[in-house]
């Protein structure tokens, strides 16, 4: 079975150079940030892949590359066997893009405050000309709102009349409007309180079960990821350092960074436990370390780690289906 989404060697570079005049006066070269640097993964239909990592690791950029909000500098995204490259005819891409939608992090910023909920949820339907007539549109929007636990009467309200959790449900209803198969969720619950987060996560799981949706779920919260994901990819400075099935990655993390992340989460069930905090911070992505970008913080780093960049691969001794990018794992040192 071909996966629904297949990403190969995806990269995105941003030009963050100073303005031309400053460059000339200060004799500075152009500067680039490699936000995403050679990421490959695939998502099976009906499954959830979660990408985790700290701020600046490139997880949101991957999300935006997938739905076409950014054009990749390099690499390909295949959706249901078809390329989503911007070089394809616009009409073909429109059809393809209707099948994937995105949910954004901040429900206060992603809904137009001057639009009624009806117009917000109906926008993708109008854009793609899916529902003819105002009455049919209203019925369809009402249906969508009920799916996410809101009422049809909410159509006539404005976003400010809703709480954060309800707004995020409106975003979900809007994303579901075109009956997509694939939803890219960029930190959908990190702006919400925990009790509201639980409501939204439950709705997302129910929708997946009922409609067979495929999710790419971006989050920095490992506990949330563990709850929603089937597969987990851990990113560090633009690259995947470990990817595999949730149960394996969480039960037996192989990459030192994954171990560190798991160690660092405060867990409510481990009252009084003292964590062993990792030293150091995420390096500046403008000037990433040589070799394995984690080596300055890694307790297992040696000369090879600082010189040679490890590739993401499977190893003997590592659970089936788990890929790790680490020399120490390859050499059996950890």
């Amino acid at each position, binding site marked *: 079975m071909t996966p629904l989404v297949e990403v190969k060697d995806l990269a995105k570079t941003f030009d963050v150079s100073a303005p031309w005049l400053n460059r000339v006066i200060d004799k500075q070269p152009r500067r680039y940030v490699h936000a995403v640097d050679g990421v490959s993964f695939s998502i099976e239909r009906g499954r959830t892949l979660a990408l985790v990592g*700290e*701020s600046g690791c490139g997880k949101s950029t991957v999300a935006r590359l997938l739905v076409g909000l950014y054009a990749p500098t390099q690499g390909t995204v295949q959706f249901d066997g078809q390329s989503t490259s911007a070089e394809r005819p616009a009409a073909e891409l429109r059809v393809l893009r209707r099948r994937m939608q995105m949910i954004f992090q901040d429900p206060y910023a992603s809904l137009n405050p001057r639009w009624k909920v009806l117009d917000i949820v109906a926008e993708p339907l109008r854009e793609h000309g899916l529902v003819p007539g105002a009455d049919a549109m209203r019925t369809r929007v009402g249906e969508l709102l009920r799916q996410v636990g809101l009422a049809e009467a909410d159509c006539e309200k404005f976003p400010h009349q809703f*709480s*954060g*959790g*309800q707004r995020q449900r409106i975003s979900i209803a809007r994303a579901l409007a075109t009956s997509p198969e694939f939803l890219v969720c960029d930190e959908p619950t990190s702006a919400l*309180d*925990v*009790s*509201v*987060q*639980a*409501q939204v*996560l*439950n709705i997302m*799981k129910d929708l997946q079960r009922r409609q067979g949706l495929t999710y790419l779920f971006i989050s*920095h*919260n*490992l*506990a*949330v990821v*563990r*709850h929603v994901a089937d597969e987990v990819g851990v990113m560090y400075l633009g690259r995947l350092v470990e990817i595999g099935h949730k149960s394996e990655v*969480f039960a037996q993390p192989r990459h030192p960074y994954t171990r*560190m*992340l*798991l*160690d*660092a*989460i*405060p*867990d*409510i*069930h*481990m*009252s*009084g*436990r*003292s*964590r062993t*905090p*990792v*030293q150091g*911070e*995420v390096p500046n992505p403008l000037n990433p370390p040589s070799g394995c970008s984690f080596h300055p913080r890694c307790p297992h780093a040696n000369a090879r780690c600082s010189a040679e960049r490890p590739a993401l691969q499977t190893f003997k001794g590592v659970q089936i289906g788990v890929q790790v990018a680490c020399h120490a794992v390859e050499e059996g040192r950890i």
Partner: protein
Amino acid sequence: MTSPLLEVKNLRVEFPTRRGTLLALDDISFDIAPGEILGVVGESGAGKSLTGAAIIGLLEPPGRIAGGEIRLAGQRIDNLPHEQMRALRGRRIGAIFQDPLTSLNPLYTIGRQLTETIQTHLPVSAAEARQRAIRLLQETGIPAAEQRIDQYPHQFSGGMRQRVVIALALAAEPQLIVADEPTTALDVSIQAQIISLLKRLCKNHGAAVMLVTHDMGVIAETCDRVAVLYAGRIAEIGPVADVIHRPSHPYTTGLMGSIPAMDEDRERLLQIDGAMPRLNAIPRGCAFNPRCPQVMDRCREERPDLMDAGATRAACWKVVPA
């Protein structure tokens, strides 16, 4: 038993508005013992930051303390004149805020901000203050403190800035530190470093901490006791382990159940339907009653006060022995 360092009794904070007065904190009472770490949790709008602001005397007008009292080591501090409160803030109560970038002045070097704080509160010479500042930076784990002391905040990363803020809060050896979401703006790996640093330093300096956060995980591994706030009132207060594992208040139970856990698999999270009421629409009786799965008639009429419920104290009619 030693006398508490901080006593808050029946604290009420209100905001007069054109459409009537909003009661943001209603009858909050708790103590903090010397050297103790008390966590204050709640969802946004529950009043947790406001509690901290009231204690350090930094309520934003038109917010005002409408009743109750706050005592620091027996001395009443909620009605102190502005100047005395200023002298006390920083000297006896230190504060750490969420965003380390906005709590540092971008135009002054770290050293100037530290020495200014030290010299304002302690009778030391400029040279001594600088030595002390360097020692503080070293203590908070800033490498090459002698050089970095002359740098500006923008030259520090987020985690390093928060270390500077902690150094500032500790500069005058305060007895109490009010930390308002000190790790919320930081990544998890940095968060762990900052939390253990805060814990260690407060222990070494003998400072008590009031830790305001929405993150139960942080509370669980940092605090001795925790107060759960809901709609401006304390729903439950008690030792951390008891509140987390044997909560008595249905809100606490719901809150704990809605947090995805790292060590168990659940198909669905426990969810509390609805949202916290707005301040202008607090329901009659118990503020939680419209969302409570165990609601009784009495909850809709009468407001429960904190009552003994095993190891914790909870404001719920369910805990009354029949």
